[in-house]
């Protein structure tokens, strides 16, 4: 180990070092400019490093230093409201240091090293602690308590010797253990290793989004995983923002992975302007943004999803429910493909590495509802966007994603063009959480919830079949009963599924309201079918007034009264018939 380690070979973002005593995934500093890199392959004396920065001008013979630490993020107060690149460098700090263009060799702390936080200890000297235990709090943002935990790392167990409240920076020592270990407000965690939990729990609580089509037809559980394919112009951005704004997760992590610079800018300028509807404060107060555009180094793009999910897990450990959105996982997979091809690995399907499906599954597996080491229940729900090339769902990334996700929200450009929003296709989307979540709905909303949803789906499916016939023969040729089904389906589509994100009331729909809307629509279906059987003509039914009043209920705050009124009017109308 006497010999100095140095660069042997450089080919694009891949560098081979000699004499480097390193473990796989160790973080290294490459060259005179100390570029950040990670060990990804060891072959005899040759150690392959993927470099997170531009390698132009790097020469063989320049030194390589092993930091002996895996690629890690700094976890502590100050994450919220931050905008990072793929390796947790704050973009604002980068701008201050090197201007509008991203130069290399610049280091930036993930957390502001100078900011002082007011720490309130909840444990005290003499307490026995385990890794992950909560020992105090910091108010990170107004209304957001950041719970300070004993880092779940080796050496952090035993008895607290000292612990004091007061004002500290993230690097100050706030206390010590009897064994001499120092405790700080922040600690580092290797991004590729999932943070431990006491045990994982079944996803039996829905992530309530306030969007009828999600909550009712295709629910996502807290700790669940969903995929959302984003073809051109299908309204992905609005859908994501609605989820970020309204879903009942306490912390949002948004990863822009390999997307367009101008679009990322849109997110970066729009998110800080969004208001948290629940508190009236900026939504950024509980959001972490990670932005890595397509022309930023490919290795950092590959790392960005891990950076994001590690931060998400950290907040889960505090007992929060976290929603993570990754846009897009296809770009991430492409980064893997690119690095794999630089390593001259044998390619799998379409040039993607053979371990693509493992990596995707591993990543999605880090989602989940869990009992954390601190004894608090938290969750990480992952919503991953996929962008299949040419809109072809049979390509490997989409297919491997679909194999692990349980909810699929198929955004449909055709619906968007018809101005049907949210433009989720109800026939191709699915959710496998319906049954696990059943008990929650039975207890908290109504026992009939699942039955109603199934009825809705049946009607929509039947509509699809009938429309094919209509195309051939026209709707007049259908039996009256089927004409009625078409009408009910229309009511469902227009008065229930469509939801206006920009209307102050309709933008969020309570579960109870969702339920009552379903109830009223199905009530119409029932009375109308009865009337049909008693010989009333379909034309008469189609011109009744009450059913079309359901359209207005979406926009009304006092929906119960309104629905009751509609129901009685409906009954009166049909009684007359």
């Amino acid at each position, binding site marked *: 180990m006497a010999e100095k380690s140095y660069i042997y070979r450089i080919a694009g973002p891949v560098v081979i070092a000699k004499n480097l005593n390193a473990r796989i995934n160790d973080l290294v500093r490459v060259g005179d400019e100390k570029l950040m890199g990670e060990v990804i392959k060891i072959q005899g004396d040759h150690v392959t490093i993927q470099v997170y920065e531009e390698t132009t001008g*790097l020469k063989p013979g320049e030194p390589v230093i092993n930091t002996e630490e895996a690629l890690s993020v700094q976890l502590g107060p100050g994450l919220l409201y931050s905008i990072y690149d793929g390796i947790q460098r704050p973009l604002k700090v980068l701008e201050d240091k090197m201007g*509008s263009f991203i130069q290399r060799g610049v280091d930036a702390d993930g957390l502001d090293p100078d900011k002082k936080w007011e720490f309130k200890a909840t444990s005290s000297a003499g307490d026995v602690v385990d890794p992950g235990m909560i020992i105090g709090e910091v108010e990170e943002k107004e209304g957001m308590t950041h719970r300070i935990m004993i880092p779940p790392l080796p050496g952090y167990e035993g008895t607290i010797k000292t612990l004091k409240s007061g004002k500290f920076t993230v690097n100050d020592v706030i206390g010590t253990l009897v064994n001499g270990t120092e405790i700080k407000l922040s600690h580092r965690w290797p991004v590729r290793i999932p943070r431990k939990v006491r045990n994982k729990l079944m996803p039996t609580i829905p992530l309530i989004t306030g969007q009828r089509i999600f909550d009712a037809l295709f629910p996502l559980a807290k700790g669940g995983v969903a995929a959302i394919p984003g073809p051109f112009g299908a309204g992905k951005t609005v859908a994501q923002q609605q989820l970020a704004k309204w879903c009942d997760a306490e912390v949002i992590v948004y990863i822009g992975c390999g997307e367009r610079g*101008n679009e990322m800018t849109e997110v970066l300028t729009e998110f800080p302007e969004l208001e948290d509807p629940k508190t009236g404060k900026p939504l950024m107060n509980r959001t972490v943004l990670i932005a890595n555009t*397509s022309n930023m180094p490919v290795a950092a793009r590959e790392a960005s999803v891990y950076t994001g999910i590690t931060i998400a897990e950290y907040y889960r450990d505090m007992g929060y429910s976290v929603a993570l959105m990754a846009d897009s996982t296809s770009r991430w997979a492409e980064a893997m493909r*690119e690095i794999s*091809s630089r390593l001259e690995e044998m390619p799998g399907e379409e040039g993607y590495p053979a371990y693509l499906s493992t990596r995707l599954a591993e990543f999605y597996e880090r989602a989940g509802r869990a009992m954390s080491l601190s004894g608090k229940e938290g969750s990480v729900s992952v919503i991953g966007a996929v962008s299949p090339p040419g809109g072809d769902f049979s390509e490997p990334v989409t297919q491997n994603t679909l194999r692990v996700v349980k909810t699929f929200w198929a955004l449909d450009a055709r619906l968007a063009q018809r101005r049907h929003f949210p433009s989720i296709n109800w026939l191709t989307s699915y959710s496998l959480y319906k049954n696990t979540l059943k008990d929650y709905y039975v207890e908290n909303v109504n026992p009939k919830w699942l039955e109603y949803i199934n009825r809705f789906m049946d009607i929509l499916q039947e509509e699809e079949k009938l429309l094919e016939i209509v195309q*051939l023969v026209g709707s007049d040729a259908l039996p009256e009963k089927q004409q009625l089904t078409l009408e009910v389906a229309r009511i469902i589509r227009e008065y229930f599924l469509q939801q206006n994100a920009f209307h102050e009331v309709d933008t969020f729909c309570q579960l109870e309201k969702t339920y009552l809307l379903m109830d009223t629509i199905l009530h119409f279906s029932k009375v109308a079918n009865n009337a049909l059987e008693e010989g009333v003509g379909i034309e008469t039914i189609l011109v009744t007034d009450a059913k079309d009043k359901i359209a207005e209920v979406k926009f009304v705050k006092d929906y119960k009264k309104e629905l009751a009124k509609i129901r009685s009017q409906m009954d009166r109308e049909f009684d007359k018939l």
Partner: protein
Amino acid sequence: MLKQYKTISDVAGPLIFVKKTHPVGYAELVEIKMPDGTTKNGQVLDTSEDTVVVQVFEGTRGIDRSRTWVKFLGETIKLPVTKDLLGRILTGAGKPKDGGPELISDKKFEITGAAINPYSRKSPADFIQTGISTIDATNTLVRGQKLPIFSGSGLPHNEIALQIARQAKVPGTDGDFAVVFAAMGITNEEAQYFMKDFEQTGALKRAVVFLNLADDPAVERIITPRMALTAAEYLAYEENMHVLVILTDMTNYCESLREIGAAREEIPGRRGYPGYMYTDLASLYERAGMIKGKEGSVTQIPILTMVGDDITHPIPDLTGYITEGQIVLSRELHRKNIYPPVDILPSLSRLMNAGINKGQTRDDHKMVSDQLYANYAEGRDLRGLVAIVGEEALSDKDKRLLNFAGEFEDRFVRQDKNDNRSIFDTLQLSWDLFSMMPKKDLTRIKPEIKEKYYVGEEPGKEKPGVHAEAPLGEENTEEQNLKKAGKA
């Protein structure tokens, strides 16, 4: 004194392998002295203690192992940047081609460029009027956008690019765009066509031209767009100009990329293109944009010919995932002798909404665009139906839509190469077309807007059959049209 080496071990395609050198930097510039005394240039592609791989821009013809000298210049490829770039014609490697002097400047920029910090970008939102209706009305271009033209071989993409370069302006401002033109592997004839046009219109004095022609070295094409974009960034961010960059033809660029990849015996990705093509293309296209606190902007119009008119081919596919939309040319329209043959249906501008807000163009712009799309799409669908059942079988409304599609192509899409339509002319033309339809069939347009601009005659009486679909409002969806088609 720089060391020279005579230690070439292998020559393969555009690459040479040099042994026993001093430590050579990655991407360093290389000078190669040929046995006959001429020199060639190259760039380090892969460097190690033992072997350095150099890609030779001018091709490796004539290189041997014993008499060829290799000199590593110790610096990466840079472009001397100055305002004098304007008006110059350069080779694809940035050398004078117009008989003028060498470029001299204290400022030299690395041509690889650096990624713009997403935090420092400014959202593009200034409407650019190209004078072409199909772009201005339905696929609006804004400053700082990258909007490629997806073309096919034999289609007039060059004419369109030139027309845009000639006519592009931001209404309300007087400054013309500076044009940076990068030709990669186009024919001499095409190049001359461009040059003649630039000279005739006087555009040359505010243009920088990089020409790599079909018979110029293919490997040089890798640096041509980077040269061009470096010049553009300089003009935009240092000289505060608004720059329009035209890159043609990106397909040739990608072919060169593949050629080098193959020569290096890399494992190929889709259709033999290298796996890093997405990132490579992104490092070009993403150099469009605007930066906070800077006056200028870089707007890109890359042109690519789709191989076999296939939009799912890796080149257009990966391009479409990086650029903010695309303008797609149609062979069918071209055959009908319609210029510019822009097919609006697969075309898209993702930044359009930012550029057509009130105060930028006109309050009806978005709705007019939606309505044009909707009518033309339906009209085109009906053509298929007519082929089966004949025109007589159509309802009146469908006949009108069919007619609309024809008129749309003939009057709206078709325009002269020198026809510079203002956005207001274009919108007026749209309303002229809409007058073929009854007011109530224009479902994508709000009533008050229709009130303001509709110029057609009010048909006083309605046919009873049409009445049935009255309370539809905005939701006049395909189903209903299908229902009606069925009835008819």
